[in-house]
């Protein structure tokens, strides 16, 4: 690790260290921690909202480009103020209370969704020392917490007292439960490869050889399966049948209005970001730059680009991929959807884990073959 200490002028590590030392110098331990927790929470919330707004903007623009349109271009330069304007609009709208609905569950449901997505968001390493929660079982934590969101979907469907909502929620449940399995197995394949469930260790292990290269064929299959199932988990793209507007008006969030609908909207976009960033962290080396062992000059140049830029760049590429898929393929039927999971993805995934175990045991990963650190 000593030879890795290149100068990295744009990293936030020093700033965070300085802030920590400043607090510790003047305040007792308890207050230092309290203030830091609050600051971290506020920073995460701010990033959450900003990322969501940027994603909505990017989605609308890229969607437009795929359809030979221009997209939002009136509010502000290149339409940049469009999503803040939409946010203000949705905040000002009335929250309609449905008569003959289960009022408590109806209003509790969006919070399950948003809390689940926010709790996963907090576990993502955004850059060097920009990592709020670093559990030693990070991968497990992410899988477990992100699946809480389905409770929100179910509650919404049930408490709305609306057949469309109910059918949408049921479809969403079937979809989520099936594809969560695939996503989990794809991540487990990489856990086998990297030998850890902690995100920080997993990233450090990918310094000179990203996991997607390290496990070559097996990693690639796991990567593709993770992207497909992640896509399905977020109810997007060709898998958006829980909210298929031609059949179910808007699916499980048909009856929601105002900011309650906004929570679902926000959570959906953030789940897309969370899936892309977990794929980045697990498969594409997270916030680490692209480096090749031995090419010190090249590595130094790559290191000048700050880690959070690398992270968001890689994540954006994956998000672009998801949009590309979304505007290429037609929506699946529910039986096709379940066929894809149970007859194709799951068996392939199980075989893939066995293949990965064999690769690791027989020393056929790229790191073993070429002696990379």
């Amino acid at each position, binding site marked *: 690790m000593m030879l890795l200490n290149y100068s990295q002028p744009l990293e936030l590590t020093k700033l965070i260290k300085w802030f920590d030392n400043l607090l510790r110098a003047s305040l007792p331990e308890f207050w230092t921690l309290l203030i830091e927790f609050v600051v971290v929470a506020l920073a995460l919330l701010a990033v959450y909202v900003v990322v969501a707004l940027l994603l909505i903007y990017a989605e609308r623009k890229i969607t*437009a*480009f*795929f*359809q*030979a*349109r*221009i997209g939002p*271009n009136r509010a502000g330069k290149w339409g940049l103020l469009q999503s803040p304007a939409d946010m203000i609009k949705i905040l000002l709208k009335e929250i309609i209370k449905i008569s003959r609905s289960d009022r408590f569950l109806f209003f509790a449901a969006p919070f399950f969704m948003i809390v689940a997505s926010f709790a996963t968001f907090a576990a993502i390493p955004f850059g060097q020392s920009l990592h709020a929660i670093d559990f030693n079982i990070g991968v497990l934590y992410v899988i477990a917490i992100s699946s809480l969101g389905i409770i929100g979907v179910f509650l919404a469907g049930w408490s709305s007292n609306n057949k469309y909502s109910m059918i949408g929620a049921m479809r969403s449940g079937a979809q989520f439960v099936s594809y969560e399995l695939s996503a989990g197995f794809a991540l487990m394949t990489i856990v086998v490869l990297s030998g850890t469930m902690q995100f920080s260790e997993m990233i450090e292990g990918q310094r000179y050889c990203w996991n997607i290269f390290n496990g070559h064929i097996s990693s690639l299959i796991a990567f593709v399966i993770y992207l497909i199932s992640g896509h399905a988990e977020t109810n997007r793209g060709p898998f958006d049948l829980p909210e298929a507007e031609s059949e179910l008006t808007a699916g499980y969030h048909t009856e929601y209005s105002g900011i309650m609908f906004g929570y679902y909207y926000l959570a959906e976009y953030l789940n897309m970001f969370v899936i892309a960033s977990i794929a980045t962290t697990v498969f594409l080396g997270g916030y680490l730059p692209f480096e090749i062992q031995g090419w010190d000059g090249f590595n130094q140049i790559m290191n000048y680009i700050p880690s959070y830029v690398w992270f968001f760049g890689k994540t954006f590429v994956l998000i672009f991929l998801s949009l*590309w*898929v979304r*505007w*290429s*393929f037609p929506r699946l039927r529910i039986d096709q959807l379940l066929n894809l999971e149970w007859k*194709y993805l799951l068996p392939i995934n199980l075989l893939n884990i066995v293949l990965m175990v064999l690769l690791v045991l027989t020393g056929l990963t790229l790191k073993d073959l070429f002696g990379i650190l």
Partner: protein
Amino acid sequence: MNSLSKYFLGIYTGVKSLLVGMSVTWKELWTKKVTQQYPENRKTLVVSDRFRCELTMPHDENNEHACTACGICQMNCPNGTIDVQSKMIETEDGKKKKILDVYTWDQGMCTFCNLCVITCPSSAIKFENNFENSVFNRRKLIHRLNNEGSKLREKKKEVKPAESKAE
């Protein structure tokens, strides 16, 4: 064995067709954008000649039009948007003659069916494609089509009906 090979063939053809689809959308991403940005592109805007927006009565350089005030357009208008006011004058050789006084057209009631233009025996009126006709007051939609002090075009009087019959 047959079903197994079918399974793998299915995966292969499926992935292949998905990749073909993605290549198509990738090309579509770089095509020229077709969006018309209206108020900015006024200069290059192309409106079809047959697009009917505003009824006009063409006047030549002598401030003369072709309307004989026969009132056929007024009779044919399904909504009663046209009002032809005529007056009787006495010509130099002592004959009485009906000429056009005021020709008004209510754009707010018009359905742009073109019946007035089709039936006009003198081809005196036609639809132009100036489509920016919004005004702040409904009364401003009532247009007077003949200019102040305009006259009937005398010479071409014989030519015009023949033309319109040929049509």
